């Protein structure tokens, strides 16, 4: 049975539709991210799951029991969920140990039991030695760990995270991504994670819900989302990409500077505009004309930047108006102005709307 079911959930604020027709099912132990730019409705959706915001339409069920509908909402304190806030919301008047033990105290556990559980969870997040400290004496990363420990120690039915890493610096953010996934693998708590950072979502999640303007664009695993984006928005939001506009001419599809056989392209026989997404990593660069099943296009290097882990080239097919972006390994060095061959695998070209 599904752990959490959102059915056609919507939320309006006056004339503004913050969330529209949102449906999602989570299986027990699943980690799902809500990903999208700011104002896309992801935090509103999370707050509806937590019970802070009533939906204006639709229902939310947990373990088969309805917890939210426009007419009745189970209050947050009765949902047995945990939430991690953007501000951490660590209580500055309590020590680390008191912060973490608070939820257990509210649940009326015995002192001994609380102490034992608090110590155990502080060991897990490597904060045991700081148990007696006050939050003002902790770094941002340590406060984040306290927030995690406080949320997990009560063994919640569902764990909700609202952009928990956005206040941390880049290195710490990367470390904490793995930490969050590690804790999830250890405790298997059903988790909903809100973020605007695609790499955060990709590292942590089993599935990602990409949202835009209050609506779901696509729900898929990180790999499928990247390799097979369904809309222009998803292709552009998850990683970098080249958008290629094509027009059907007989058995071929003509693009800017090259053409491909319609039979090799996905969806080339469909109706509507032919817009394709082609990832910079899916294009190869070679000095010799490649042979085999790939599409070979003669081109010229128009610009480049070196980013340490890879080269970001702008390569212009001969006769094309706009260059394509191509990523190569750091050892593939081409000077600007050099003639090269682009190797394009037509099956890597994904038709988007």
């Amino acid at each position, binding site marked *: 049975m599904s752990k959490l079911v959102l059915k056609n959930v919507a939320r309006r604020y006056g004339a503004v539709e913050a969330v529209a027709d949102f449906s999602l099912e989570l299986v027990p132990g699943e980690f799902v991210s809500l990903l999208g730019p700011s104002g896309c409705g992801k935090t509103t959706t999370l707050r509806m799951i*937590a019970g802070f915001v009533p939906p204006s339409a639709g229902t939310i069920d947990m373990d088969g029991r309805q917890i939210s509908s426009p007419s009745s909402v189970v209050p947050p304190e009765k949902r047995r969920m945990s939430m991690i806030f953007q501000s951490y919301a660590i209580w500055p008047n309590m020590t680390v140990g008191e912060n973490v033990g608070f939820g257990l105290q509210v649940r009326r556990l015995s002192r001994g039991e609380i102490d034992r559980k608090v110590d155990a969870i502080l060991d897990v997040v490597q904060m045991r030695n700081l148990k007696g400290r006050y939050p003002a004496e902790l770094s941002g990363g340590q406060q984040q760990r306290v927030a995690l420990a406080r949320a997990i120690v009560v063994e919640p039915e569902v764990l909700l995270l609202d952009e928990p890493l956005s206040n941390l610096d880049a290195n710490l953010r990367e470390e904490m991504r793995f930490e969050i996934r590690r804790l999830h693998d250890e405790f298997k708590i059903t988790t909903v994670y809100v973020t605007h950072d695609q790499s955060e979502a990709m590292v942590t999640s089993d599935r990602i819900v990409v949202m835009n303007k209050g609506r779901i664009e696509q729900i898929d695993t990180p790999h499928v989302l990247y390799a097979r984006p369904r809309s222009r928005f998803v292709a552009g939001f998850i990683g970098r990409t080249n958008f290629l506009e094509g027009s059907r001419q007989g058995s071929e599809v003509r693009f800017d500077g090259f053409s491909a056989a319609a039979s090799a392209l996905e969806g080339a026989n469909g109706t509507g505009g032919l817009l394709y997404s082609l990832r910079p990593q899916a294009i190869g660069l070679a000095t010799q004309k490649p042979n085999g099943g790939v599409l070979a296009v003669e081109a010229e290097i128009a610009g480049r930047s070196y980013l340490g882990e890879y080269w970001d080239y702008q390569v212009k097919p001969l006769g094309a108006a706009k260059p394509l972006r191509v990523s190569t390994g750091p050892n593939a060095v081409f000077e600007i102005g050099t003639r090269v061959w682009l190797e394009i695998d037509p099956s890597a070209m994904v038709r988007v709307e």
Partner: protein
Amino acid sequence: MFGYAVFVAALAMFLPYLFLIQAAFAKAWGRGFGLENISLRNFHFVLFEHGTAAKSVLNSFVNAGVSATSVVILTLGVAYIVTRRLVPFGGILGFLCIAPFVIPGVVLAIGFYAAYAPPPLALCGTAPILILAFTTRFLPIGYVNASAAIRSLNPEMEEAVCVLGGSRLTALRRVVAPLLKRSLLGAWLLIFIPATRELSAAIFLYGPNTKVASVMIFDMSEEGNFEYLAALALILQVLTLPLLWIGQKALGRDFMLRRTAT
């Protein structure tokens, strides 16, 4: 610059105080400064011989203490409800808390008299009516302080309590109140000190057993007992000054200007 500052201080502080102190210790204040004119008789009289003067100081402090405490608790609740939008049209509640600020104390007192003096309440001349009036008079100060303090708290702190299973009340008791302790103590002192010398409402509402120090002082001035008046005023001063000192010690030098919880 320095000279100017001394001049202002002299006009505002030193001169009035000098003559107040002189009068308090004088056998007769008209006889001027001089060793032969000094005595403690006035203090002895107001503290031990006068029928109600000592009692009036106690009344003032009890009334002010109870009023300040109830203002702080009331306004904390109202400011919380208004700031967190727990009820529709909460803004009206907030406005009602501020409204007494524009009502003169005398008018307020007459209103209280008219409302509470007739039966069945018949509160005229009792301590509760004074406390009610003081509480109303100082609601605005309490409300402005409490609402500024609450606005400085991130609501996520309370939401974290709710998510973990605590009620709103638990959040108020375990998180909001402890975090606002310092600003609430500051607000309490800001109300308590002026409440000990409130005259305009008290003068209409006191009874034989509930006379407060400010009214006592006013009566003495009517009777022309300036030496006793000065002695009583000085006693009041000496008793409240330590509170100011405690406030500054506990809350920092600028506690009267404090508007945020840190």
